[in-house]
């Protein structure tokens, strides 16, 4: 059942288009991430759901109720901010109970809900502490509890982990996801961190220059990027210009080397220019006889990245990366060596223009 709908949303600031023709339907209990670089419009879109910005055109509905022009304090939407935004003059318990106090709930009801929320974020003993007495991770958990205490229809999270160090980020994102699943609440999460989006989301909306580039599950976004931008933004991807040789046989050519793809090329003609993309981990050195997708290359550089070894290759005039798992018995070529690599036809993606 569609819970949150954004229809034909556009937002302009002084002649500059921040968000353009944004359409999205979010199911109840779904965790959707808006992923993109700075200035791509993801936070603006989130702020339009929260009511802090009014769309220039388009409509925002929750459970079929049009909330496009409703004031932020009239919507039942919880929000977690990057800067925590805890009220410094209030204790943790007062922060969590503030929304309920505004709703004029009884003191007993507020106390019960605050206790429940403190247990949810595992900060039962911190109810009387002030925000400045907590660590950043604890403050953000309190901010999450405060947003959830009002039982919002939708939970919005605006880069909530950006101000935290890497280790806390990883543990807290898992905690956020677990709480969201436990409560079954619809959540919209804004981030520029692809790893965060891939690890936490049911679906990801990749945005660029105010437009949606692709909507899909993390698996789809990573493995089947549809545009050059998604390909370049999510993970490391080798891209190269190619020419369609035979659409029926899925044959392409880069720098005179023929490649076979699994992608459908019915709408293409021989001679059409396209961009192909191959993930670095999809390449292998040739260990046995192969007939297709054999690429002659020269080793340009080898970089150790811990569990992975990244090898930079020159194929024709294109620089490609190849990733291989590190192990103590790995036999690596030397820089300057000539080698042959291969990849499966499924690994060769053809990007939309």
């Amino acid at each position, binding site marked *: 059942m569609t819970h949150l709908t954004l229809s034909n949303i556009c937002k302009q600031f002084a002649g500059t288009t921040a968000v353009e023709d944004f359409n999205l339907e979010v199911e109840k209990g779904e965790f959707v991430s808006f992923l993109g670089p700075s200035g791509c419009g993801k936070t603006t879109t989130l702020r339009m759901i*929260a*009511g*802090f910005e009014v769309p220039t055109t388009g409509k925002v509905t929750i459970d079929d109720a049009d909330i496009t022009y409703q*004031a*932020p*304090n*009239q*919507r039942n*939407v*919880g*929000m977690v*901010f990057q*800067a*925590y*935004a*805890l*009220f*410094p*003059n209030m204790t943790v318990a007062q922060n969590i109970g*503030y*929304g309920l106090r*505004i*709703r004029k709930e009884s003191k007993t009801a507020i106390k019960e809900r605050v206790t429940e929320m403190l247990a949810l974020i595992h900060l039962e003993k911190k109810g009387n502490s*002030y*925000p*400045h007495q*907590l*660590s*950043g*991770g*604890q*403050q953000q958990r309190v*901010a999450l509890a*405060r*947003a959830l205490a*009002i039982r919002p229809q939708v939970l*919005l999270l605006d880069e909530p982990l950006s*101000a*935290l*160090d890497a280790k*806390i980020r990883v543990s807290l994102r898992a905690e956020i996801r677990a709480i969201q699943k436990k409560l079954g609440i619809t959540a919209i999460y804004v981030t520029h961190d692809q790893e965060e989006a891939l690890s936490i989301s049911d679906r990801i909306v990749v945005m660029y220059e105010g437009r949606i580039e692709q909507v899909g599950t993390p698996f789809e976004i990573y493995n089947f990027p549809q545009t050059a931008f998604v390909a370049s933004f999510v993970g490391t991807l080798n891209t190269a210009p190619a020419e369609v040789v035979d659409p029926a046989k899925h044959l392409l050519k880069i720098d005179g080397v023929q490649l076979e793809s699994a992608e459908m090329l019915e709408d293409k003609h021989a001679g059409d220019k396209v961009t192909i993309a191959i993930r670095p981990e999809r390449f292998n050195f040739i260990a046995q006889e192969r007939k297709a997708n054999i690429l002659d290359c020269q080793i340009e550089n080898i970089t150790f990245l811990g569990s992975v070894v990244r090898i930079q290759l020159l194929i024709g005039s294109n620089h490609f990366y190849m990733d291989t798992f590190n192990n103590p018995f790995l036999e690596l070529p030397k820089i300057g060596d000539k080698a042959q690599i291969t990849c499966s036809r499924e690994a060769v993606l053809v990007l939309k223009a």
Partner: protein
Amino acid sequence: MKRGNRIWSWIVMIIGILYFFLPLLATFIFSLKAKLGVLSFQAYANVFHDPAFVYNFSYSVLWAISTIVVGILLFVPTAYLIRLRVPKLRSAVEFITLLPFVIPAIVFVFGLVRTFSHPPLLIVNSPALLIAGYTVLSMPYMYRSIDTGLRSIDVRTLTEAAQSLGAGWGSILFDIILPNIRVAILSGAFLSFAIVIGEYILAQYLAKPAFAPYMAYQIQQKAYEPAAMAIISFALTWAAMGIIALVGRGNGQAQVGGGH
């Protein structure tokens, strides 16, 4: 730091202290000489036993408190909304807040008298005009203190966080903004108090009872009591500063963000 530089620093500091404290010390000693041949607090006793002092001083306190209340009601929402909605106006408003330093009080008071001494704005005899005038004179201190307080918190994010929890403008101002800038407001309030208590021209020309015109009158009549009043006035100002420092010290005027 070299030894020679340090000696010079001490010399400059001592000259500064002497420049400030010597006249004050001389005034204090003079105020103790009301009784012939002995040092006593007779002048202070005379001042406190004078009903006119109590009358005029009480009025000054009343004007000061009214000015502070009006200042808070006027400048907190103004500074808040300018930070939140029209930050571009900040430099223009800052310039306006400095005008009382530029325009002499005597020019200001004649402007008030001329503007408000004939219908439809015949309020020259109303205490409201005096309080409005004091509010303008204390504006550089009050507004800038409040603005500095607002700068120390993330006004926009706190406002949005409160809005997302259902709070309206009144709740945001009274529950979130005011408590988090209370030290700044107190600083502005005490500075305004000191300004109003010592202000002479407005009260004199708007013909309202106040401490400064009373003190000026006493200077023409007596010798030691005005000196005692000057010391009392200084003591009040210092007490106000001390309270600001006390309230400010150790106050958890926490900031948004931070942590790790």
